[in-house]
Each structure stands twice: as structure tokens, then as C-alpha cells.
């Protein structure tokens, strides 16, 4: 069967349910695509056809027409900071280059129970720190739409892989935009769920209070299928919460009347690429066609979200990454060292530049005498931002912004890390406030896709998916594929 990679999840499920294709054939198909194309874009870093096909065989054994487990036999790629016993879990780092987790992440257990086939692990920025997938120990990921461009980060491997048709579904993780920005650069739909909707148990932490696992796929509907699997409260994650929702079923309903979308008036204070402006304007028009009303809102704390984020995230990362020191697991600098030498050499050699930069920033902002100036201030900014969002959601249902102000940029585009940090401006506020946010394709600029972002109130993930689903039915933006990967 041809072009299975352009089929929606709904269509793939039908093929499997009607026995037109087996899980084994479907898995083989995607494995073959990885074998053919991965060397071009380096999106998948752990892959084993035998491991994938073994799972598929087992699934073929148990496949029934029962709707209880709709995704059985559908291949999925896990981001390489999600612990899985089937493959190594490297976090894109030399530090964990050979790390084999002895346990599965909650999300992996849920996917296994559903019958999804884990065919591999995707490349990523080291420890999820980066916006371009240029910090991975395993090399850059190339954007399948144009190989001179970055795929975005940190879930760049996941985005490039799904865009190139290596799997119909992938997980990403999003701490400041790591699902949404690469989704925008690669023409995908990516949802950062409400904080707590998906268990972080088995997700290797970057910044614990911001990290969230979410789905990346071609369409909102495909994302909804994965959300139905991965949103289960986990007693092993104290921050996880119950989210009772049938996402796919919810999408079938018409969007409620009188939906109001707010556009922050502060957007005009920022430099936004004309191609993104154009797509944004067209998105507003398309949404108006769905009887959605627009209002102007003010999100004055938006600008301060960026510095707050680059204090809180590094602060938590400096603590979360302190366990990588050569003592118990992961890379160790061997030799006759003192304890201090072992620590310092292990960390000097095991971590890349960007990770070290953030650890140092984080260590500094938590230091005695500086906490008040930085960390405490950042927390209070966060508090203000939350209050502002609360007000906004009393007058409108969603907020629309570009996902990022440019299409995918070229490699080494930013000489100064702070400039690259600034590109996360639109995606960061949702993380700081635990809000769900979705990026979806909203246009094209030459060969490159452009995305837009909708932010919703807590546990309105299903409403975000529904609105984007209807937008996609109306516009068809999600059905364009990169030329070289047809």
C-alpha cells in the first residue's frame, strides 16, 4: 500500500480495523521510510526495526474490532527524554549517550497498553535546551521542508520525523515552546497540554514546574487521538491531575457559538516577519469564517515573561541536572581523580555548551544574596502574568498569537544565545502559567510552513483541539507535505 504516511490516524485505524493492513505491514512501511530518509535529516536517533516489528506481531495477535483500544498497531516515535525500556534514553546528551532506563515513563506504559508501536526515539536539543536542535550531541536535525533550515527545538527530531512521514504520531515535551515552535517550523500540529494533564513520571526533567509532554502530529484530530491515550492521572506524579475527556469524540461536535478570541495589542511592539504577519492575518480571516469573534486584549506582562522564564527554567535545571556528575550513572570522566575533579571533569566533558550556560545561570540566580533579585522577582512576575491571564479568560475563550515571529531559520542564524532566547517570546507565557497552547500550520512562505498559536484556559485542551480541527477542515493547511518526502 502506498502513501500510508499521508493518511490520517482516523484512516489508518479504519485500514487496521477492516483488516486491509496489518500492524506488521504498517510498522514495516514506516520503518522503511526511516531507513530510507533518516540519514538525510537525522531526526531519529534510536531505531531498531526488529524491536518495532516484534511489537507489531504481538499487536496483530490481539487485534480485534473492539473500539476499546483504537490506536493499536499505529506507530509512534518517543522523544528521547522519555524513558523507555525498549531503547536507550539519551536526552540528546553525551552525559546519557549510553543510558538505558530500567523503567518506562507513564506515557510509554499508556502507549504500550493502548497497543501503539514504539518504533524509535527522536533527536532533540540536549536536555531539551535549545530552539533549533543544534545542541544535540547526536548532531543537527535538518528541516525536511528545506535542508538548510533548522527544524526548531527542542522537539526538532519529533517534528522533522512526523513531517517527513516517519511516523504518524510523536511525543514531544514543551518547557518554553519545545513542542509548538518545531511544530510551526515543520508544518505540524503540536499541543502543549495543561500542566498536570499528562504525567511527567519518566520524563527526564529540564524545568519541572514547566515541563509537559504533548502530542505532535499532522492534524488536531491526530493529536486528539494521542491525548485520549496519555491523559491519565498518575499516582507517581504528584502534580498530575485527572482530566476526564474523550478528546476525539469532543472534536466531532460543532464549535460552540459566540467563541471569542483575544489578540494581544502588545503584538505590535515586536518585530514579526512579514510572512508571519501575512499568515496571521489570513488565519484571523479563516477563523472569522467559522463564526468566531475577535477582541483586542492586553497582555502587558508578556514582555517580562521572557526574563522570568530564563531565570526560573535555568534555576530548576541547575538542580535537576546536578545528579549527572559521574557518581551513580551516565558518563564519568575516568582516572585517578579527587571527588571534585571527577565532578568537574565529568560535567565539563559530559554537557554541551548551552546546557552548561543554563546550569551556570541557574546556579547564580539561586545563590545566597541574589535570590531576591532574580528568582523571587521572577516568581512574582509569574504571579502577575497568571492574574492577567485570569482576567483575559473572563472576557474571551482563547488567545491567538503567531507561534514564533519567523519561519524556520537557517543553521547558525543566531550568534548570540540571548537573541535565540527572544524567539521564544510567544510560547513562554503558556508554560509559566500552566496553560494549554497549540501550534498549527497557518500558511506557507515559499517552501516553509508558518504556524499560529492558540492559548486556552486550564483544561480547555479539548476546546483548542476542536477549534483547530474545524479550522483545518476549512483550510486544509495540514494536508501539505514537504516535496522531497512525498
Amino acid at each position, binding site marked *: 500500500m502506498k502513501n500510508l504516511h499521508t493518511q490520517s490516524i482516523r484512516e489508518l485505524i479504519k485500514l487496521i480495523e477492516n483488516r486491509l493492513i496489518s500492524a506488521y505491514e504498517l510498522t514495516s512501511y514506516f520503518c522503511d521510510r526511516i531507513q530510507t530518509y533518516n540519514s538525510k535529516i537525522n531526526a531519529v536517533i534510536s531505531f531498531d526495526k526488529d524491536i518495532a516489528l516484534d511489537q507489531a506481531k504481538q499487536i496483530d495477535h490481539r487485534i480485534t474490532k473492539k473500539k476499546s483500544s483504537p490506536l493499536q498497531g499505529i506507530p509512534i516515535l518517543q522523544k528521547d527524554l522519555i524513558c523507555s525500556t525498549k531503547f536507550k534514553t539519551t*536526552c540528546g546528551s553525551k552525559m546519557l549517550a549510553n*543510558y538505558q532506563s530500567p523503567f518506562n515513563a507513564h506515557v510509554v506504559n499508556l502507549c504500550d497498553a493502548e497497543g501503539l508501536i514504539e518504533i524509535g526515539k527522536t533527536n532533540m536539543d540536549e536536555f531539551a535546551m535549545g530552539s533549533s536542535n543544534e545542541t544535540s550531541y547526536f548532531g543537527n536535525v535538518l528541516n525536511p521542508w528545506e535542508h538548510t533550515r533548522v527544524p526548531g527545538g527542542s522537539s526538532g527530531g519529533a517534528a522533522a520525523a512526523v513531517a517527513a512521514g516517519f511516523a504518524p504520531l510523536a511525543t514531544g515535551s514543551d518547557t518554553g515552546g519545545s513542542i509548538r515552535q518545531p511544530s510551526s517550523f515543520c508544518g505540524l500540529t503540536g499541543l502543549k497540554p495543561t500542566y498536570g494533564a499528562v504525567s511527567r513520571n519518566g520524563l527526564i526533567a529540564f524545568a*519541572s514546574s514547566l515541563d509537559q509532554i504533548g502530542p505532535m502530529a499532522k492534524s488536531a484530530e491526530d493529536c486528539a487521538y494521542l491525548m485520549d491515550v496519555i491523559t491519565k492521572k498518575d499516582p507517581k506524579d504528584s502534580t498530575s491531575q485527572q482530566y476526564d475527556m474523550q478528546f476525539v469524540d469532543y472534536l466531532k461536535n460543532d464549535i460552540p457559538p459566540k467563541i471569542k478570541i483575544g489578540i494581544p495589542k502588545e503584538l505590535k511592539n515586536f518585530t514579526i516577519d512579514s510572512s508571519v504577519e501575512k499568515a496571521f492575518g489570513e488565519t484571523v480571516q479563516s477563523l472569522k469564517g467559522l463564526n468566531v469573534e475577535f477582541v483586542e486584549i492586553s497582555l502587558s506582562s508578556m514582555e517580562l515573561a521572557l526574563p522570568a522564564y530564563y531565570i526560573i527554567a535555568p534555576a530548576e535545571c*541547575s538542580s535537576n541536572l546536578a545528579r549527572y556528575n559521574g*557518581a*551513580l550513572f551516565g558518563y564519568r570522566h575516568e582516572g*585517578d581523580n579527587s571527588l571534585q575533579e571527577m565532578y568537574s571533569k565529568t560535567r565539563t566533558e559530559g554537557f554541551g555548551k548551552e546546557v552548561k550556560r543554563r546550569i551556570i545561570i541557574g546556579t547564580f540566580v539561586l545563590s545566597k544574596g541574589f535570590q531576591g533579585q532574580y528568582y523571587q522577582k521572577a516568581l512574582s512576575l509569574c504571579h502577575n502574568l497568571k492574574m492577567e491571564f485570569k482576567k483575559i479568560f473572563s472576557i474571551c475563550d482563547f488567545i491567538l498569537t503567531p507561534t514564533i515571529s519567523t519561519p524556520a531559520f537557517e543553521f547558525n542564524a543566531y550568534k548570540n544565545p540571548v537573541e535565540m532566547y527572544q524567539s521564544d517570546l510567544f510560547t513562554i507565557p503558556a508554560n509559566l502559567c500552566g496553560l494549554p497552547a497549540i501550534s498549527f500550520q497557518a500558511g506557507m512562505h515559499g517552501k516553509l510552513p508558518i504556524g499560529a498559536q492558540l492559548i486556552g484556559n486550564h483544561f480547555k485542551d479539548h476546546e483548542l483541539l476542536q477549534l483547530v480541527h474545524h479550522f483545518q477542515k476549512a483550510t486544509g493547511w495540514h494536508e501539505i507535505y514537504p516535496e522531497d518526502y512525498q
Partner: protein
Amino acid sequence: MTAPLVTIGLEVHVQLNTKSKLFSSSSTEFGHQPNKMTSEIDVGLPGTLPVINKEAVIKAAMFALSIDAQLNEKSIFARKNYFYPDLPKSYQITQEAYPIIGEGVLKVDNKEIRIERAHLEEDAGKSIHDGHSSYTLIDLNRAGQPLLEIVTKPDITSAQEAIKYLKKLHHLVRYIDISDGNMQEGSFRCDANISIRMSSDEPLGTRVEIKNLNSFRFIEKAIDYEVSRQHLALMNNEKIIQETRLFQESSGKTLSMRSKENAADYRYFPEPDLPPLVITEALIQQAKDNLPTLPEKRVQELMLSTHLSMDEAEMVTTSRATEYFYSECVKKTNTQSYKTIYNLIFGELSALINKNQKSIGFQSVKPEHIALIADYLSEKKISQPMAKEIINALWHTNNGSVDKIIQEKGLRLVHDDSKLIQLIEKVVHSFPEQAQQYKDGKTKLLSFFVGQIMKETKGNADPGTLSKLLSKYLKESL
């Protein structure tokens, strides 16, 4: 030379005797092979998350209730960051600005020692340096064990008072069963903050901390040494520096570990993996249900209801197990023989327990046995030596029965007058010489006859009845 005024504040780490660790389901049992009692959470593997152990929270709440301390409705866990190989995550989850327990008071000999706070935290593993010059061994069995750190205000004024406070606290945490208090195993460890000044007009002196003291004797020695060291320094016009010192057991001295300038910056911040700890009414109720009557109140109760003296009642409440054993016996006696029960427990039974190095409650001698033996003693069915023999027999049998032992060994006092009179006749007639001497006024020979009759009855005759009948017989028949 006037003695200095001593100011001491104590920080005690009490290991809570929960079944599992503070943030994982690993067992807390002591004495296993190194690193056997660990899970991926205790080892800090990537992707693991802590989940608070409710039992530990209940035990902390029990402590708060027992000293009537502030139990904070909301408390916050924080990370204390430092690098050490026996700290797998390179941070310890503890509580800093918002502890679970606020102010309270512990009364020691009519003096109130104020408790400043108490907080929950996880223990670190152990580094074993001895025996190897080129490497250190790490045992993570202790990593993640639940600790309650109890901090006093600087209210203590001498080493002796510190020991009294610690003994009281030690007794309390064991009595309310939140810790086994085993000091050798490190379940009750103490840091002491000590400063001196020469008069109460002066501000408090510079504080020196002595870390990781784990026996009452060492604590007392360490404080005494430290006070005289500081005093000597002041006499010589030396400045006391704020520092952390360690007590060296071999020399009895304290040695400098690090000064304030070199103190680590722990970069505390709220633990993002744990939401604020909320104490619900239901949890408080559970803590109340688990809490026994506190020792002081129980002493009063025992004095009133079982007529023990204060010393005796305090003896009963030395431990929860003893109190429980005694109370069970009291429930089961039919003759209100409280004093006899007390004497049996702290006499023969304690002797056996000590000899065999057992603890009360685990032996085969049960409260119902002691109660029955006490009843028989009161009813004069058995004698004191018989009671001793029965208890010894019970100690060596499982599910033994008092009546069965009495029957098998024939341990019953003979009260039957006619039976005794028969015996008396028989014995007196077989010793005519002695009978004659008795008649002639050698009344001391009464005990000779008693002994002979006892021999005949294998000691089963009730001595009181016997001597009454014997003297009557001798008077009348001769």
C-alpha cells in the same frame, strides 16, 4: 573565675518508623545488604518523581499533637542543593521556610523548652571510607528514609539540661511510636548549637554548631568540652568564630569542620515536583486516633485506677510496650491484683527479658498468664516460688497454659485441713524425739516440723494454714 552562662539550642533528627521511605515505596528496614532497599526513586534515576508518604505526615502530625505545637495547614517542600556521592539527586528534599510544624513546648522538670519548628526531610545514604584508600563505598539503603528534624529555641542552659530534654524527647517519640529511637542505628541524632557569655547583660555569644552526636554520653561530653573550650578562649581574649565542629569520640574533643565563610550555599528553592503539603481535618483525626494517652497523663491515670505509686507508674510508662502489657494484664485480672501484677512484670518477667535480651510483648508469657498468676497468688492458690516456676515454664513454651503447668508440676497449695492434719499426725509421730523437745519448751522446732511437712507435700502446703494447724495440733495432742 566565674562560670559562663551557657546557651544551647538543639536540632534533633528523628527517623520516623514508617514502613516505606519518605518519597518512595522502598522498605525502611535496617540491616539489609547495602543498596538492597532502594528503588529508582531513591537512587535518583532520571525521570523519577517523589510522592509523599502519608504515614510520615501522620507521624509528624502525631508529634505536633503530643507537644501541642502549631500544625501548619500548608507546608512547602524545598530542595537543598549540594554535591555528595551519597546524595543521589545532588539535592535533599526538605522543608525550609514553611515547615509542617511550628512552635510548641516540651516541659522538662517544670522548665519549658520551646520548640521553634519541626520539619520533614529525607535522609542521605552512607559513605563508607574505611578500608579502602582509593575509593569510597556508597550504601543508599538509608537514602530517602523519613526524618523529622525538631529544632528548639536557645532555651537550654547546660549539658545536663540538654540531656534531660533529649531523654524526654527520646521517650516521647518512642512512646507515641513515631520512631524506634535507636541511637546506634542513627534513628535519633542531634546537632547542638552552643554559645557562652559571661553575664546576662551581654548579648548572646558567637554560636558554634556541633554536628551528628548520637549518644547521650557523647552529647554531654561534647557540650561540656565545647563550653570549656569557648570559656578558655574568652579568658585568653580570643575571638570565638562561628563554625561547625565535630565531636571526636576517641579524644573527647570537638574539632573544627568548617567556618561560616566556607559554609555551603544550599540554594534552597521550592521543590517543583511536590505540591504544597496540605494537612486535612481527616489526617488530623487519623493522627489523633493513633496517638496513645501521653505518658504524663497515663501516669496520673495509673496511680488513680491501679493504685501504683508515682515511681511505679513511671516505671510502667517507660515504654509503650510495657504500658500496653501492664494495661492488658490489668484488664484481665479478676481480683484487682494490680500491685502483684506490677511485681510479677518488673520482677520475674523483667529478669527473663533482660537475661534473654528480648523486648516486652514478644515473649511467650502473655498478659493473660500474668493476670491469672496474680489472681492465684491473691487467692493463695499458689505461692510466690510457684509463680516464679510457672513464669519460667511459660517462657519456654509456646501457647502455654498456666493451669496445665500447675497440673503437670503439681504446683497447688494444699488448703484442705483434714489432709494437712493427717500429714501433721504422721510427721509428728515419726519424729517423737523432736516432739518431746518441743513439748519441753523448745518451740523453735515448729519450723523443723513445717519444713518436714513441706517436704512431704513437695512445697504445696499453704504455709499460713499449715503453721496454724501445726501449732494447734502440737499444743492439744502433746
